């Protein structure tokens, strides 16, 4: 807790600086695309949101494995606290992707592999959160939610490789691919900075959410103990 309090201001400061630099470069210095024109700038929020949604789910799955195997008390707290943040990133990736798709593909949505697997990821996030809401016993909820998170992780590589495995309207990987990125540095630099900005935003919000979850559990235990003492 003390470490978190010490780290928190630095994480927020780095987040704001990264967003400032990333937006400045992405919106004013990076060139418009020769085919997509200014619409390419949607990429600086769409792609980092999609990366972050996948990263957060991976964090949740790893925390769930640690929770199940080592029974570390912080593991399921970390997984639970990450879920709403990941769900928001996933929603943003879908929403901004839709806003990109309409002018570029002529449609808001197609049920192709990348879009559908990303939508499944959003459903996994919502399902994971619904389990915590629906089950009163936290130990049982954490076990079932962890299993859902671990099993659902199979969707993460499906999202990543969907554009290679199936025919898709979505463009293939152009940053994290064998042979290196295919994007010019003037576009790649702001994209990577925005990716880092989203990652630090996740870290900043996750630290607060973990602290809240620990506090909420202490409240629950105290209230349960009091109810028991009164009976």
């Amino acid at each position: 807790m003390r470490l978190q309090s010490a780290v928190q201001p630095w994480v927020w400061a780095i987040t704001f600086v990264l967003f400032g630099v990333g937006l400045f470069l992405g919106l004013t210095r990076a060139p418009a695309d020769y085919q997509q024109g200014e619409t390419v700038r949607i990429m600086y929020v769409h792609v980092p949101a999609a990366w972050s949604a996948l990263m957060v789910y991976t964090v949740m799955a790893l925390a769930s494995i640690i929770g199940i195997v080592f029974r570390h008390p912080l593991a399921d707290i970390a997984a639970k606290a990450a879920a709403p943040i990941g769900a928001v990133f996933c929603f943003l990736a879908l929403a901004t992707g839709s806003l990109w798709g309409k002018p570029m593909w002529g449609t808001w949505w197609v049920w192709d592999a990348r879009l559908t697997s990303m939508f499944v990821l959003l459903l996994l996030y919502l399902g994971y959160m619904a389990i915590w809401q629906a089950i009163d016993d936290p130990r049982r909820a954490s076990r079932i939610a962890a299993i859902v998170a671990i099993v659902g992780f199979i969707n993460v590589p499906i999202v990543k490789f969907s554009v290679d495995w199936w025919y898709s309207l979505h463009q293939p990987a152009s940053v994290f691919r064998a042979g290196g990125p295919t994007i010019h540095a003037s576009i790649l630099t702001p994209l990577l900075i925005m990716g880092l900005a989203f990652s630090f935003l996740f870290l900043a919000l996750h630290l607060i959410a973990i602290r809240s979850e620990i506090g909420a559990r202490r409240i629950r235990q105290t209230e349960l103990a009091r109810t028991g003492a009164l009976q």
Partner: protein
Amino acid sequence: MDFSAPHIGFVISSYAITFVVLGVLALWIFARARSVARRLRQLEDEGAERRRKTGRSEP
């Protein structure tokens, strides 16, 4: 950025949605943290008050 370019509305909408939604998420997380901290303080005060009334010292 050229604000007269075609489809610029889609670009502005994307950034607007992103920052509004992220702002709401951050506010929700801060609000929850504040309400949890307030309830914890309240419980600690109540516990201290109870210990004072029953004459028990702090453990």
